[in-house]
């Protein structure tokens, strides 16, 4: 009898646990049950991304009658830009009464994992703020709407070099939202001590000045930063061949460049800790251990926070140029999920967020640049030309650089692998005295095998 009761009790317990388990696993709507269907839909969308951007489940027909709920995932913009984002939401909702926009801000360091988790459950946000690397990964997998087709009408409003940022495997999968290029913040006192009255204009000049600066002041001049891989395109050395199927950076010019970098390293002109992210450039500059910092002007304020005195005496100049004379622009992007249930509304909202007026308004609130040509013509971006403030002046120079700027990230999925291969090779040159030509050959082979996968 007791045994029977015991068995009954255990059975009830197991059933209870199963019930709770299955209840917990179900999200209350069709999503869970439709996981397989979602996959099918995803496949269909992958194949026909461009064709069916106009077909949505809940759109009544014409684009003027948009409806549905649009989840807009932003990255670390709340609470700082709450008014701006709410303004966007309200304006769009008043233009399209059938659409409800839901803003969901997520911390920067959790974006990728969160998007991956949502992608795995077939529940990607309709409109997403994504960085360029991730756009390429998700775009290559067919998770994003093809903007070459869905936003063809606004393509020409963007700077061409920046529009291409979201490009992977020949199609663009995101609209650039805001961007940065570079400026130069420099310490005129250190330059004066070393006998210079102006900052360098090119990387070549920068390296030429560095030994004297180091000798006279003890501070570094030019240094190799963690984004060293962009030195290739900035000096006219392409990452990949024209059809993006093979590495193209193993050239005599690249060997010469790395040979020089190795010589500078051996001469003590820079240290590897900056390259390895062990110290921050903002800290080094604020401590007057480096004479200039080539970076986006939105970061100049870090110097002010760390050392107001150093910031006060700092000036801004145009960004350093390589032999190609081009600057890298790395935009933050707006992408639309290819599985969105309100795809028309989502695409319309993405275009709305990235139109000239809204980009300009955002650039005025945040220290960023609009990737839309019309917005950059606003007198706001010329205001800093005569400013004594390094950030304001830096913004002017960065805006000037937009015309020739382009996104230099290779238009393939395995971007992080390519950078890693180049970094490892360069570290071998510095730390293990590997011949630059051999290191580049090894990196080339690694990149080729990545691209072949």
């Amino acid at each position: 009898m007791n045994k029977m009761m015991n068995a009954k009790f255990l059975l009830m317990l197991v059933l209870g646990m199963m019930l709770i388990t299955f209840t917990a696993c179900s999200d209350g709507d069709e999503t869970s049950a439709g996981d397989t269907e979602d996959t099918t839909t995803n496949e269909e969308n992958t194949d026909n991304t461009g064709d069916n951007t106009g077909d949505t489940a809940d759109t009544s027909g014409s684009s003027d009658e948009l409806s549905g709920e649009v989840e807009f995932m932003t990255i670390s913009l709340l609470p700082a830009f709450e008014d701006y984002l709410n303004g966007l939401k309200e304006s769009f909702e008043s233009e399209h009464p059938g659409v409800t926009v839901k803003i969901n801000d997520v911390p920067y360091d959790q974006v990728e994992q969160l998007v991956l988790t949502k992608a795995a459950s077939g529940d990607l946000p309709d409109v997403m703020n994504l960085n360029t690397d991730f756009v390429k990964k998700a775009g290559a997998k067919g998770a994003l709407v093809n903007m070459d087709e869905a936003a063809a009408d606004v393509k020409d409003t963007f700077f061409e070099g920046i529009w291409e940022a979201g490009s992977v495997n020949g199609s663009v999968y995101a609209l650039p939202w805001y961007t940065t290029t570079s400026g130069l913040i420099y310490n005129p006192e250190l330059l004066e001590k070393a006998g210079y009255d102006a900052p360098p204009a090119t990387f070549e000049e920068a390296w030429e000045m560095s030994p004297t600066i180091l000798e006279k002041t003890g501070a570094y001049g030019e240094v190799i930063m963690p984004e060293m891989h962009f030195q290739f395109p900035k000096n006219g050395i392409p990452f990949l061949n024209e059809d993006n199927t093979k590495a193209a950076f193993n050239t005599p010019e690249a060997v010469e460049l790395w040979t020089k970098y190795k010589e500078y390293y051996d001469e003590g002109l820079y240290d590897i800790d900056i390259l390895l992210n062990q110290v921050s450039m903002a800290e080094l500059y604020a401590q007057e251990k480096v004479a200039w910092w080539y970076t986006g002007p939105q970061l100049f304020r870090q110097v002010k926070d760390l050392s107001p005195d150093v910031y006060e005496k700092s000036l801004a100049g145009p960004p350093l140029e390589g032999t190609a004379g081009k600057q890298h622009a790395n935009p933050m992007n707006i992408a639309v999920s290819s599985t969105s249930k309100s795809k028309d509304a989502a695409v319309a909202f993405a275009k709305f967020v990235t139109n000239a007026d809204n980009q300009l308004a955002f650039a005025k609130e945040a220290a960023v640049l609009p990737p839309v040509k019309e917005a950059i013509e606003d007198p706001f971006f010329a205001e800093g030309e005569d400013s004594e403030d390094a950030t304001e002046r830096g913004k002017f120079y960065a805006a000037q650089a937009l015309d020739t700027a382009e996104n230099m990230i290779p238009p393939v999925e395995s971007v992080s692998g390519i950078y890693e291969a180049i970094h490892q090779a360069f570290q071998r040159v510095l730390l293990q005295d590997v011949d630059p030509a051999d290191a580049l050959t090894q990196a080339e082979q690694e990149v080729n095998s990545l691209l072949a996968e």
Partner: protein
Amino acid sequence: MYKARHAWSFLSIPLLLLLLFTFIPSIAALGLSFTNYNVFDPVEWVGLNNYIQAFQDSEFRKALFNTVYYWLLVTPVLVVFPILIAVLVNQKLRGISMFRLIFYFPVLVSVVVTAILWKWMFAKQGIINYFLSFLGIGEIGWLINPSTVMLALAFVTVWQGFGYYMLFYLAALQGVPKELYEACELDGGSFWQKHIYVTVPLIKPMIFFVTVISTMGAFKEFTLMLTMTSGGPLRASTTAVLLVFQEAFTELNMGYASAISFILFIVILIITFINQKFLDQNPR
């Protein structure tokens, strides 16, 4: 029967949580290790390909080597050193609880905060090199030199972990009968002999436990490497779990990352069995 029913009632919720958040994901990960799942595309069965790839992958071999090296640096120290500290703070002295608190304090600091603090201290112009300069030792690039990076990371792990294991030993020491020490003293045993012949045999189960959990901790360590070095320089501090993270969340190779995880699981299992064979014996 009544007691059993109550026991099961209390156990059911933890069991359910364990089932939901440990067993089911683990089984799902084992399944994924036979696929080339990348989150966005449908799952594709690839059989043992991921496991074959792992054994051919020089990065994985290097990560496994780094993990074993780190384990060998960390675990012996974390097994032995806390015993010494525990014996010291087990004395009945005035203010001894303050010392216990001081030794335990690093455990309370978050790993990320610890990592950032030690990253500054290990910098070329950091405080460690500053003190070493008094001994005539020149600047050492602790975290930027492939041959010193693991030593530095192991030091931080020991600094943060020894207080935790000290607490286990302290609990075990409280259970050692004082009469045994007295008997040893009567036999003329010295301080060291008392501990070698009385303490160590009686806390052997705890030594086994600490060995197992510090081994698992060492094999699973990831936050320190991610925060302090990102696995560099030249992948000298890329551990197996860091590689799993990079493969899963940077390269989106969920299937391959799952396969590496399972290989790591097997390695930990084997090491635990070896530990058990040598250490898990009842005190005689």
